[in-house]
């Protein structure tokens, strides 16, 4: 090591280091704010998944109604009666398609919303 290298190392070692509480206080505030945002995002994600789950269940319920309405009705789901009004013998084709499309859109929208919320939390 040359004299100059030693001088350089000493200059680095002795160089001024900034020290003021403002910096650490500011970092702490930013960290606390980020944590609050993360908590809100997690809650939103949980809510989105709950909505998506409910929509999927609703879709499954609709499917079960068309395959085995007696079984579903006997389970006592309250919605079965309303569903039967739409998809029952008195309903026309347009009503049936409308009910089916509504369920599909609801499920798709809820799942997409859940995925967007999940992606947002991952970023």
């Amino acid at each position, binding site marked *: 090591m040359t*004299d*100059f290298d030693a*001088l350089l190392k000493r200059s680095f070692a002795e160089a001024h280091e*900034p020290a003021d509480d403002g*910096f*650490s206080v500011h970092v*702490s505030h930013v*960290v606390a704010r*980020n*944590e609050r945002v993360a908590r809100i995002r997690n809650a939103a994600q949980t809510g989105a998944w709950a909505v998506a789950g409910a929509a999927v269940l609703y879709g499954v319920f609709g499917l079960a109604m068309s395959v085995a309405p007696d079984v579903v009705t006997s389970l006592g789901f309250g919605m079965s009666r309303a569903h039967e009004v739409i998809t029952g013998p008195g309903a026309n084709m347009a009503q049936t398609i409308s009910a089916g499309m509504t369920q599909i859109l609801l499920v798709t929208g809820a799942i997409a919303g859940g995925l967007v919320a999940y992606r947002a939390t991952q970023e």
Partner: protein
Amino acid sequence: MVTRGLINLAQAGEAALIVAAQARDQAAFGELVKRRQGWARALLRRMCSNAAEADDLAQEAFIKAWERLRDLETPAAFPGWFRRIAVTTFLMAKRRQRAVFEEIDDASPIASEDSTPEAAAGAKIDLERALSRLSDAERLCVTLNHGEGLSHSEIVEMTGLPLGTVKSHVLRGTEKLRRMLEAA
């Protein structure tokens, strides 16, 4: 005196603060920032040569550290681990600015105006002023090599620059600093 749980923040060792911060204790992390800010900000100021920008990058580095603290395997590895985050943050900022690691060919005299008797024959470099006259790449490599004591291969591993480039930047940067001092 701030006491949180079983940890007395003011008296806790750095390892204890790191372990507590890994458990998402914000107060422990705040104390860690308080203790390490001088080193981190000085490191980034040498690399940036702009105090305000360096402080912004230091803040960004500490926030990244908080987010990734669980990845740190042992508290003893914190300085090296954080240094890597700081250097990566600096390099990413330079990429965002599309900065070219420009050459500055200014070797005019530069010496401390307030040389101390301790400095040999009054030879003490005004480090920040001297470093500001180097190119970004030279400043980065000289700071990591002479300031942080990293070997060329460690700098290569940290920055992703080729070994020959790192050696060249360290040599040229050091030579420029020497010329500045000799001309003073």
